[in-house]
């Protein structure tokens, strides 16, 4: 919208209006008017960054993850994987709007959120009859619209279940995937999110905190460990793909996987640096260490392959980047550049081993390595955060040292505890959900359907029609 006649935009943002006219017209300056102007400017800067970050995180799920995962399956299942991503963008968002945000961030009880934000109440704009103007809500006492926090977090609620899809790709019924995502999001993600980020039993220094709680800047426990562990459960319960181990199951389009990896890397800047929830110096610090860890992950995985297979593969390089990004996620606001390089490099090698050695050793079919990368990398990152966290990044504990490297120990203990709780909770809850669905409707596509591919069987479409 543009030029507005009597009673327009600047009535709404009375503040702004008055402020700018105040400078542009000759109107007199007061400390209050300048303060209001500075406040509006602060809101502008933070909103710009958080809206951008929210867009970047959505970008990670589709097209990012959709292409990354889409390229890794066989041609006959490419659309089914993309459909999971796109459909979850719809489904999880609606759940988040109706009750998910409230269950996650309502109040600060120990176990789960309250109902204060149901249906976007106490988040959305309302009309104040007295002042005859709209009421705008902000996040805590920061110059950031509460909407930014809500929608940014909502993007995390989309990608987390989408990550799990990597484990049961090419064989799970679409309908079962839908039900699973609803239940998992509600019963696993929301509570976990509340525990870690809203004063629950894993929140750092929260009164309810177990072992003092954990540092999780952008979702090591909430997003990666939870999805990675749950992914493993799915792989185990649903079982292997037909022909696993004998048939040719090579990724059908690695160009998509590289495309997706590039998008994930870029989107992750929003994921990690956005988690600062302000556009400030620490946000830039989180951005930098995220980038460095991803870069080191590329080298870690590639060098491992170079030694091990004599050739570095682009799939390895792309996977290494993701491993580095996963590992730095909990640490993004807490570690300095050099430790970040180390974390990424180690993550690249450890995740390569998890995919190349651990998986064959146990023989489970974690089809796209959701566990191998997110479960293993997330756990590694959470623990290393306890090692490398420094108050020089975020002085979160009133001047006390944080990680082992600066002589702290409480944080390390808290990290271990949080990892353990997250893993146990994810295993138990996911297993129950899977069993219930299996009994109620079945998890797996029919054998013929699996042979023909999910694209035609579940969606009645084909990915490529090239003649």
């Amino acid at each position, binding site marked *: 919208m543009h030029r507005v006649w009597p009673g327009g935009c600047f009535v709404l943002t009375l503040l702004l209006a008055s402020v700018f006219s105040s400078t542009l017209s000759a109107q007199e300056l007061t400390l209050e008017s300048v303060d209001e102007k500075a406040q509006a400017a602060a809101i502008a800067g933070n909103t710009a960054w958080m809206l951008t970050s929210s867009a970047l995180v959505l970008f990670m799920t589709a097209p990012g993850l959709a292409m990354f995962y889409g390229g890794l399956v066989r041609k006959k299942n490419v659309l089914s994987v993309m459909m999971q991503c796109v459909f979850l963008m719809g489904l999880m968002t609606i759940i988040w709007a109706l009750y998910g945000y409230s269950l996650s961030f309502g109040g600060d009880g120990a176990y789960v959120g309250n109902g204060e934000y149901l249906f976007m109440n106490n988040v959305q704009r309302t009309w104040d009859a007295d002042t005859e103007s709209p009421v705008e809500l902000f996040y805590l006492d920061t110059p950031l619209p509460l909407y930014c926090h809500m929608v940014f977090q909502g993007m995390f609620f989309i990608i987390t279940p989408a990550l799990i899809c990597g484990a049961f790709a090419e064989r799970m019924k679409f309908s079962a995937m839908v039900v699973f995502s609803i239940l998992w999001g509600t019963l696993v993600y929301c509570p976990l999110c509340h525990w870690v980020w809203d004063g629950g039993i894993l929140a750092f220094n929260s009164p309810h905190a177990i072992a003092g709680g954990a540092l999780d800047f952008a979702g090591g426990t909430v997003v990666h460990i939870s999805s990675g562990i749950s992914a493993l459960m799915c792989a185990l319960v649903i079982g292997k793909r037909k022909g696993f181990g004998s048939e*040719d*199951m*090579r990724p059908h389009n690695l160009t998509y996987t590289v495309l997706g990896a590039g998008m994930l890397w870029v989107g992750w800047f929003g994921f990690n640096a956005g988690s600062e929830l302000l556009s400030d110096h620490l946000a830039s610090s989180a951005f930098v260490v995220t980038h460095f860890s991803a870069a080191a992950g590329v080298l870690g995985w590639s060098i491992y*392959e170079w030694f091990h*297979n004599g050739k570095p593969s682009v*799939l390895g390089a792309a996977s290494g980047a993701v491993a580095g990004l996963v590992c730095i996620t909990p640490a993004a606001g807490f570690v300095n550049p050099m430790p970040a390089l180390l974390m990424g490099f180690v993550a690249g090698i450890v995740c390569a081993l998890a995919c190349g*050695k651990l998986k064959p050793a146990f023989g489970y079919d974690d089809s796209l390595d959701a566990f191998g990368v997110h479960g293993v990398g997330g756990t590694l990152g959470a623990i290393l955060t306890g090692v490398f966290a420094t108050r020089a990044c975020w002085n979160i504990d009133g001047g006390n040292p944080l990680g082992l490297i600066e002589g702290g120990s409480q944080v390390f203990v808290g990290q271990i505890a949080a990892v353990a709780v997250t893993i146990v909770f994810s295993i138990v809850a996911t297993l129950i959900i899977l069993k219930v669905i299996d009994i109620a409707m079945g998890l797996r596509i029919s054998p013929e359907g699996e042979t023909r591919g999910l694209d035609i069987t579940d969606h009645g479409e084909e990915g490529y029609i090239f003649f």
Partner: protein
Amino acid sequence: MKKIEAIVRHFKLEDVKNALSELGIAGMTITEVRGFGRQKGHTETYRGTEYAVDFVPKVKIEIAVSEEKSQSVIDTIIKASQTGQIGDGKIFVSDLVETIRIRTGETGNGAL
């Protein structure tokens, strides 16, 4: 008439085609195929999982020729596509009962 099917390496297609054109062969039909034979494939590793790729990409060239020309066609193909290394491919010769040019309905050698 004879039908000559030659399975050759991709990067030899251009040479074979040119050699045959010089010979005055008016037409041929090409198909992308994958071959299995003495020439072993290779293995590819994806995130630590190995896959043996036994089939090697090749092109199949099909040519319908008159009896007289067939031998020269065969020789030409060999000359143009031979590298001497395993995987050069094969030539299969079979009889054609009839050939028809759809456009005109012509049959026999005239249709080639």
